[in-house]
């Protein structure tokens, strides 16, 4: 097990380097100049030149990249060009928000997707199955931002049930924090839950066809017990894979949902940074996102081993 983890971590290093190079290069391909964007309405030529030199933007791209890597190796992610705030502290400010949103969205997704997938597979071809599929398809097809705006109008503006947007840290007021995040988490979770339902359903269907299920049923085990204890456990491996990918994606920030609900998470941070050509911020966020993606997938690998005894021996 430890060797698996060590191996995975070793592979992570070149992955991170590759990702950072790719993002660095792609950003430089974007038209637009961070210093011009930063200067905004005040396009003072002398100031622009000073800033360009200060942030090494007048150097060739490979040199800029090397300078960035050198700083990161020293634990310095740089400073936001636009606001002068260190990138590390920006990330530290946004990461807990994004994690909270991701976890709450996952709770919705799991709560909706897994039971619906199991029920739908167990009752394949029935009205229940079709009904669940229709709901799942709508969940996937309804755009996040539209569902978000509709919910705000209904739940907040009309019924005054939940705060319409914003973010409250849980350390401040735990219940208010949960309440504020309910709608965005639901919006995100609904779409993910729908995907999860489809994957659970197909994984369950293929397991339910297996011989050992028939044997278990033939031995006289209860249908419910067979589905939950025998079938679902074996269907879990592909489900965990999908879960890890979805969760990793959430950690990258949910751009549209964050925008609609004005949640100060990664998505909003990185989009603003891209529009302002705030390279250091984009690089920092992408690095951390890639890192969390790798960690989540590593956790998934560990879970496989725990779930599947056969993997433990190999």
């Amino acid at each position, binding site marked *: 097990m430890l060797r698996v983890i060590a191996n995975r971590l070793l592979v992570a290093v070149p992955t991170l380097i590759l990702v950072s190079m790719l993002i660095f290069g792609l950003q430089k391909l974007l038209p637009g100049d961070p210093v011009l964007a930063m200067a905004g309405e005040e396009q*003072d030529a002398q100031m622009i030149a000073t800033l360009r030199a200060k942030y090494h933007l007048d150097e060739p791209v490979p040199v800029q990249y090397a300078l960035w890597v050198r700083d990161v190796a020293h634990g310095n992610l740089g400073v936001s060009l*636009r606001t002068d705030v260190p990138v590390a502290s920006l990330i530290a400010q946004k990461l*807990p928000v994004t994690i909270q949103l991701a976890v709450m969205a996952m709770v919705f997704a799991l709560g909706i997707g897994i039971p619906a997938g199991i029920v739908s597979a167990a009752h394949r071809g029935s009205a229940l199955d079709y009904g669940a599929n229709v709901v799942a398809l709508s969940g996937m097809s309804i755009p996040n931002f539209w569902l978000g705006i509709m919910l705000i109008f209904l739940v907040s503006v009309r019924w005054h049930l939940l705060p319409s947007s914003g973010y409250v840290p*849980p350390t401040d007021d735990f219940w208010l924090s949960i309440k504020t995040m309910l709608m965005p988490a639901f919006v995100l979770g609904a779409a993910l839950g729908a995907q999860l339902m489809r994957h659970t359903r197909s994984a369950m269907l293929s397991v339910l066809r297996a011989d050992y299920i028939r044997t278990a049923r033939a031995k006289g085990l209860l249908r419910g017990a067979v589905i939950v204890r025998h079938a679902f456990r074996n269907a879990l491996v592909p489900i965990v894979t999908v879960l890890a990918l979805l969760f990793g994606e959430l950690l990258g920030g949910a751009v549209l949902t964050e925008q609609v609900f004005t949640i100060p998470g990664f998505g909003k941070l990185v989009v603003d940074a891209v529009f302002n050509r705030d390279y250091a911020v984009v690089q920092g966020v992408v690095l951390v996102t890639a890192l969390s993606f790798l960690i989540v997938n590593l956790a998934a690998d560990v879970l496989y081993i725990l779930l599947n005894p056969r993997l433990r021996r190999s």
Partner: protein
Amino acid sequence: MRTLTIAAALTIGIAATSITTGAAAQTPAQTLRIGLQEDVGSLDPARSAQVVDRIVFASLCNALVDIGPDLKFVPMLATSWSTSTDGKTLTFKLRQGVKFQDGEPFDAAAVKANLDRYRTLPTSNRKSELASVDHVDVIDPSTVAIVLKAPDAALLATLSDRAGMMLAPNTLADPAGVATHPVCSGPYKFVQRVQNDRIVLEKFDGYWDASHYPIQRVLFQPIPDSTVRLANLRSGSLDMLERLAPSDVNALKQDANLRFVSVSGLGFYNMTFNVGNGPRSNTPLKDKRVREAFELAIDRDAINQVIGAGIFAPANQALPKSSPYYDAALPFTHRDVAKAKALLKAAGHEHLDVEFTFGNNTVASQIAQMLQAMLSEAGINLKLRPTDYAAALNAAHNGDFEVLFTGWSGRVDPDGNLHQFNTCAGNLNYGHYCNAEVDRLLNDARVKPDVATRKPLYDAAQKLLADEDPIVYLYAQPWPFALSKKVQGFTPYPDGLIRLRGVSVKG
């Protein structure tokens, strides 16, 4: 090692955030929550480059002078001022008993320290605004003299804005500190900022005019999506918002709980023609007849009614109607398609393909489409090129455009709306229009002392510009606000800033 360090930084950061993001959950009485269209850039007046920054500065910092709703200068940190007869010394008498938010006294030495910083900080955006200043003299603790290299008529206006904002001298040594925790002398002091989320200010009890500020706490929340910003106002999560989308104006007017207040701003939206910036300027647009045809083909009133919901007041010049320099005699060009076609023909064109570059957003793309439809009737085929804001700026600087749609937030002094756009070497002269006579007039107007002597020069320059059309003005920038009926005493100013003197929240 690298990942470890970052992980460690993050863990510490997470712990720190839970402490620092705490403040604004509770909303005690007399809190004003303001929805902003975009997040603030730098909170250092020296670095600031956005209009939205100034909205926050208006509560946080005081400048030497301020403007009234009629654009006349009124005392702020300076109680009176005078210009020497040669126009090269501006002397300010300072208000007594003013304290900075950290308790430091405000005096002439503080003024000198701030102005010197704005003029010398390598990354200062205020340098060019203060370029005319030679040095600052402390006469006595309550008198300061600004000595100029040459007379500068726009200086007082400059000092009413960021370049005249006074920060506590003890905090000036650390530029990063100023940006993350500015200490000024305004009615509200800085509490916290969470980027993209909130800026919290709290009443400064030591403010010299504190009794006129009933609001105890101000919360600025950037909410870029205008629909969501309005939904927040409707659900009671905000008390007011700035820059309401024109498409929401009519719905808002019918809401009994909300109030709509709009004022025509100091700025403008325009089409700039590339007449000399790089190889892409080699188009028929170099011919002023073609540019005039452009102007004749458009209908500003239609844009105002259809897209602007009546708040996009048509503009034919760079100066706002509220300015004493506004040239009321300058004729408006009204739509005349036949004449536009005739002009095009005279210039040797039946049909014309022109690329139209604009920073993409809802309003800009509506305007682009409407212009496309109007111009096509005159035989001009607009190819729309939407880009994001940063790319549009780049295109503007590099001359990578034929016609560019841009806006300017405007300045109190006419110089700020004309000089840098129309003089040959102007920073914002994207089309590289160059006319020696316009240069002479605009440079002259800079050094003349008063409206009476400056206005004829601006009138003459604007007449030339209107004739040559390097820039076609479309409409004056509006400042539409939406407020809850609970908010009382709010007056909009043409500069779009939210001044909280006398503003209160009821119930």
